[in-house]
C-alpha cells in the first residue's frame, strides 16, 4: 500500500459521497415538509 498514484475509484467515491450528501438533505427536508403540511399522514408510516 505504498503506491501513490491518484485513483479514479477514489474520485468516483468522492463524487458519490457529495451527491448523497445533497440528496439526503433534499429528501430529508422534503419529507419534513410533506409531514408538516399533512401530505404524509401518521397512519401511512409503519
Amino acid at each position, binding site marked *: 500500500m505504498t503506491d501513490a498514484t491518484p485513483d479514479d475509484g477514489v474520485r468516483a467515491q468522492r463524487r458519490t*459521497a457529495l451527491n448523497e*450528501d445533497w440528496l439526503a438533505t433534499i429528501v*430529508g427536508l422534503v419529507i*419534513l415538509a410533506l409531514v408538516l403540511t399533512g401530505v404524509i399522514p401518521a397512519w401511512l408510516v409503519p
Partner: protein
Amino acid sequence: MSTTEQTGRRSGVGWAVGGVAVVVGLGAIVRYLEQNIPDLTEGTAFGEVAGAIEYPVYAIVLGLLGNVVLTQLGVREKLAGGFRTEFFIKTGLVLLGASINFAVIVSAAGPAIVQAVVLISVVFGFTWWLGGRLDLDDKLRALLASAVSICGVSAAIAAAGAVQAKKEQLAYTASMVIIFALPSIFLLPAAVGWLGLENPVAGAWIGGNIDTTAAVSAAGAIVGEEALQIATIVKTTQNALLGVVAVALTAYFAFSVERTADSARPKARELWERFPKFVLGFLAASIIATIYIGAVGSDVARPYISTVNDLRTIFLILAFVSIGLEFRVAPLKDAGWRPVGVFASATAVNLLVGLGLAVLLFSGFSSGA
C-alpha cells in the same frame, strides 16, 4: 459508450436496486420486531430483556446475518451498491434535526465546537505521529488520522480525495472504521452505565468517540433520546469541520509531501465543496420545526413531529442494517498489524481525551428532551 458498457451499467443498477430491496426488507423485519417483540414476549423469561433491546441492536444483528447469508450465496459484493449507509444515516439525521429545538443546538454549539477542535487536533496529531513512527505510508496515515479523529468513512473519503490516495487505501480505512465502530455501538452504552454518566455527558462522549456517524446514532439511541440528540450535535459539529481538515491536508500534501512546480493551490471553494451539506439540512430542519411549533403550538405540532420521528427511526434502521451488511474482515488481514495498531491506539486516546472533555464541557447540560 459501447453496448457492452451499457449492458454492464444496467446490470450494476439492477443489482444496486436489489441491494436496496434487501436493506428495506430487513428493515421492515426490524421495525416489526422492535414494535412487537416486547408485547409478544410479555410474561416470558425473555420479556424483560426484550423491552430493553433498542432497534439498533435488531438492525445490526439482522444486517450481519444477512451479510453471512448473502456472502454464502455469493451475491453480497454484487448487491453492495444498494447498501447506502451514508445516504440513509444523513437523511435520518436531517429528520432528527426536527426533534431538536434550535435553541438547544445554539446552546450546545459552544461546548461542541471546543470539544471537536481539541479532540480532532489531539487525535489527528497522535495518529499522524504514531503512523510516522511505525513507518506507514503518508497517504494511509492521512486517511487513518482523518477517519479516527473526524467522522469515519466520510472523512476518509474526503481525505482520500485531498491526498490522492489509492482506492485500496480507502477501502482498507473504511473497513477498519466499521470493524472498530461495530463493537463500540454496544460497548460505549455499557460503559456509560458502568461509569454512571449523565445523558448529555454520555451523548458528548459517544459523539466525540465513535468514528462513523451511523454508529454514533446507534449508540446514542441505545442510551436514550437526550444522549442521541447531544451525540448528534457533537458529531455534526465534527462533520462540519471536515472541510477545514480536507483543505489543510490538500495544502500540506501539495506543498510539503509532494512539492512540485505545478502543485495546484487549494482554493477557498474547496472548503465549500468538501463541507458536508447534510449539516445544513439538519440545521434547517431544526429551524423549520422550531418555527412551526412556535406558530401552531406544541399540542397541535406534537403528532406531526411524532410522525417525523417515526420516519427518522425508519431511516436510521435502514442505515444500521446497511452497516451490518457492509461489514468485512478480509481487508484487515491483508494489511498487517501496524495500521490496526495505529487505529486501535488512536481509538484508546480518543476514548480517554473524549471522556475528559465530555465531563468538562457537558456536565449539567440539559437539552430538555
